[in-house]
């Protein structure tokens, strides 16, 4: 907390705000010493003078010095703000801490009062109080403090509840420490960040409220100088000397602004950085087509040397590195590897939808002979949905939560077919039926949160099929589902493919799934394709030690970033990929030769490729194993 407060003060705006507030306080407190004139001394020969040598900020309609009156007015304003903030702190912090810490009925009553208080317009209470007590500024500012307390209490309550969940506080409660000591010793220091933020906002609001009360003539009465009263004075002569609005408005505005900026700085320093708040970068144009070999004729999809750079926590790094990949019409191709190998990014590169800030730095994507990379955003956009489609891992999260699912499918049907609403509706029901959803007409009216994961994934498949794509990218389509539902979805994909002659790129970390349904598969490690070959054969006789390692543990529903049992270590982060073969630190076969230079792709058998210098040793192991089996027979 102390550290974050220091970082808050490292920002130039925060320093400027603090410096300004110090200046205002000094000017107000030392006004009797520093002020150039008497605040109530009139000079009728120099009324409404505008800035001059003797009156740097001009004079008002009675010839009184504006600078002097602003300095004296600051005394009233700052005292008022102090009263309001103190009231707010005492009431808000105590209520919030008690409600958050004790919960139960204390919390319910406090929350009810907070809700109630927040729904009364501030001005009503203020005017009622003022009409009863008369022009009493202290009473008004106490009221302002009371009215600001609920928002503070709400923030403190939330922060307290969060802190209470943490282990050390829970431990202290179990250990029997008295509540008061836990609150003052452990909870309070942890919630000071939000309190400071809310106090700064409250101080700004109190100052505005105070100026407002004075402006309406309900606060400290003339001739005592007040900031709000000076704006009233300025308002009366606005057609004669508009300048008077400037110093009075600026001093109020800047002081409120300074409170606000200070609060912002503390909030930014204490809150976790939210990445989504970062301004979006405009998507840059893809790299020019590379001059690498042309794709094989007849291939539906051909990636050549696809290289993607992404912004990471350690700067921009290449995450997908020179990927070559082919898919023939109607073929099911697997892309397998641990989390963080670049599989999904490869899928997004095919769609031309890289994450924010990502860029295709080299390589080409050809779809049915058309170079999408050269065609740029237009070509990708034209291909999406009608030629390449996607189903993703998120089932319910993959659907718009506030639209009925039928409408979401129908929107895509209309988009791709350009047909009437009625025709789109009929086609939508056909699609929902084709993904084996019962009672499509009723289902179409339901919302995503009313569906099970498996049903939602079927709707997502129907959406992907709306444009009759030639290639379906299925990115971990079953990972988040139950095992029985997984099998149903895979079976559905298999059947749809047979019916439609559609190709599928199945991205998965689950070897079992890939081996079961894929004609061919690619194994990806740390951004590179390390091995490829026919599906079942690839995993029966791996030609790369990484594939062999994956086979050795065949993860079912592995949480990301956990070490594989059969392979020591983890996938290196993009900024920490070792030279040479990226796999060598984890590889049992690694030699000095693996640690330097590019490892070329070898072709140990027709249709088999491996990026390993020692792939023959794996073959020998296989031979030994087979020999062993034979000997036992």
């Amino acid at each position: 907390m102390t550290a974050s407060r220091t970082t808050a003060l490292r920002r130039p705006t925060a320093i400027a705000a603090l410096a300004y507030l110090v200046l205002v306080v000094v000017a107000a407190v030392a006004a009797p010493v520093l002020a150039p004139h008497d605040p109530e001394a009139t000079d009728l020969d120099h009324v409404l003078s505008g800035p001059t040598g003797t009156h740097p900020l001009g004079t008002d309609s009675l010839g009184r010095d504006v600078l002097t009156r602003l300095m004296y007015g600051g005394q009233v304003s700052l005292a008022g703000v102090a009263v309001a903030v103190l009231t707010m702190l005492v009431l808000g912090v105590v209520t919030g801490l008690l409600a958050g810490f004790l919960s139960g009925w204390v919390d319910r009553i406090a929350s009810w009062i907070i809700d109630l208080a927040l729904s009364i317009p501030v001005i009503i209470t203020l005017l009622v109080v003022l009409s009863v007590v008369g022009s009493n500024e202290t009473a008004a500012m106490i009221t302002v403090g009371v009215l600001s307390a609920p928002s503070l209490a709400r923030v403190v309550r939330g922060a307290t509840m969060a802190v209470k969940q943490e282990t050390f506080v829970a431990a202290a409660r179990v250990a029997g420490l008295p509540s008061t000591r836990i609150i003052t010793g452990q909870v309070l220091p942890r919630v000071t960040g939000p309190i400071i933020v809310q106090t700064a906002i409250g101080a700004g609001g109190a100052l505005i409220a105070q100026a407002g009360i004075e402006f309406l003539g309900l606060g400290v009465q003339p001739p005592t100088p007040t900031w709000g009263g000076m704006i009233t004075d300025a308002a009366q002569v606005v057609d004669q000397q508009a300048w008077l609005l400037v110093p009075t408005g600026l001093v109020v505005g800047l002081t409120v602004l300074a409170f606000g900026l200070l609060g912002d700085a503390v909030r930014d320093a204490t809150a976790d950085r939210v990445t989504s708040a970062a301004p979006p970068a405009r998507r840059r144009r893809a790299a020019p087509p590379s001059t690498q070999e042309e794709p094989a004729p007849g291939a539906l999809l051909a990636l050549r040397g696809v290289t993607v750079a992404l912004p990471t926590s350690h700067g921009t790094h290449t995450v997908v590195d020179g990927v070559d990949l082919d898919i023939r019409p109607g073929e099911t191709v697997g892309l397998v590897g641990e989390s963080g190998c670049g599989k999904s990014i490869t899928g997004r590169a095919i769609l031309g939808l890289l994450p924010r800030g990502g860029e295709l730095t080299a390589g080409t994507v050809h779809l049915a002979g058309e170079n999408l990379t050269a065609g740029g955003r237009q070509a990708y956009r034209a291909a999406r949905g009608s030629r390449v489609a996607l189903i993703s891992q998120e089932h319910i999260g993959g659907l718009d939560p506030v639209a009925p699912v039928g409408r979401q499918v129908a929107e895509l049907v209309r988009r791709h077919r350009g047909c009437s609403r009625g025709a789109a509706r009929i086609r939508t029901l056909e699609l929902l039926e084709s993904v084996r959803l019962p009672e499509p007409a009723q289902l179409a009216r339901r919302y995503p949160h009313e569906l099970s994961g498996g049903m939602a994934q079927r709707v997502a498949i129907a959406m992907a099929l709306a444009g009759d794509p030639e290639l379906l990218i299925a990115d971990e389509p079953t990972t988040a589902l139950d095992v029985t539902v997984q099998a149903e979805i895979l079976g559905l994909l298999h059947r749809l493919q047979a019916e439609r002659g559609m190709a599928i790129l199945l991205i998965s970390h689950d070897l079992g799934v890939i081996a079961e349904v894929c004609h061919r598969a690619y194994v990806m490690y740390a951004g590179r394709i390390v091995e490829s070959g026919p599906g079942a054969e690839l995993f029966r006789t791996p030609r790369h030690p990484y594939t062999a390692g994956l086979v050795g543990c065949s993860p079912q529903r592995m949480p990301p970033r956990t070490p594989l049992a059969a392979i020591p270590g983890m996938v290196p982060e993009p900024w920490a990929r070792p030279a040479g073969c990226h796999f060598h630190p984890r590889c049992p076969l690694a030699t000095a030769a693996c640690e330097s230079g590019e490892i070329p792709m070898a072709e140990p058998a027709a249709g088999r490729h491996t990026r390993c210098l020692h792939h023959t040793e794996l073959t020998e192991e296989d031979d030994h194993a087979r020999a062993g089996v034979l000997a036992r027979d």
Partner: protein
Amino acid sequence: MLRLILRRLLISVPLLLLVSLLTFVLQALTPGDTARTILGNTFTQEGYLQLRHQLGLDEPVLTQYWHWLSGALRGDLGVSPISGLDVGQQITSRLGVTLSLIVCATVLAALAGVALGVVSAIRGGAFGRLVDALSLVGFAVPVFWFSLVLVTVFAVTLGLLPATGYVDPATSLSGWAGSIALPVVALALAPTAVIAKQTRDGMLDALSRDFVHSLRANGAAERSIVLRHALRNAAIPVVTVIGLVFVGLLTGTVFVEAVFAMPGLGGLAVQSTVQHDLPVIQGIAVTFTVIVVLVNLLVDITYGLLNPKVRAR
């Protein structure tokens, strides 16, 4: 949905009772009373007591409150002891002015704020900084000062619009529009910033969700993704903010009516505060609270219409 509305009504009734009771209790706690205010400095004790009795001030506070409450439920808010005018009539004749101002300001702020928020979420850069700057300005600039600046520029210097006064729309529609233009702009500044910020944050959040990626990957039109899907998701919290903004405008209108000399409820409230005219203040407090209750109800209903998860309940 129904539960939500019922819950809101369950909060509203005690709220209304609380606000009205509060004024009575405060009144009882203060030295001096309406009778003394009416009589001024010169009065006889006998006359004072008689007036007190006439006004019902010699009864216990709760009895007085009950009289007022049973009257209020029949639409009778009492008579101002200062002006002798019927409180209910005074309020109804001024309600149109205040509602014109705050409804127009809410609509303006909602339109401008949502547009600004959407554009800044998509474009970022300069638009993003504009929203940030606007929200700082909206927070820091007092509404009455901004009103005065508008008067100076558009009424005094350029002479484009009237500086003060209100024209009834029944008299002249264009006159009405001209008379409320500056006050409405003054009122809308801060709310625009608040709504723009909420819209931008909501849009950025919605656009980063998985369903947006799926829609894009499957060829949905970008315009539909932004305006239909993302905006509808982002609109749910924006509606709540618009409700809060409306309640805040009840405060703003008191100041704006003072600057522009508008014959609305805000001006009446200030005048009655100065004169200690408690029945009028009480009537205004109850009117404002009823407005708040109705707006909150409207917000809840809209919220339910936008959010199917709430509607189902």
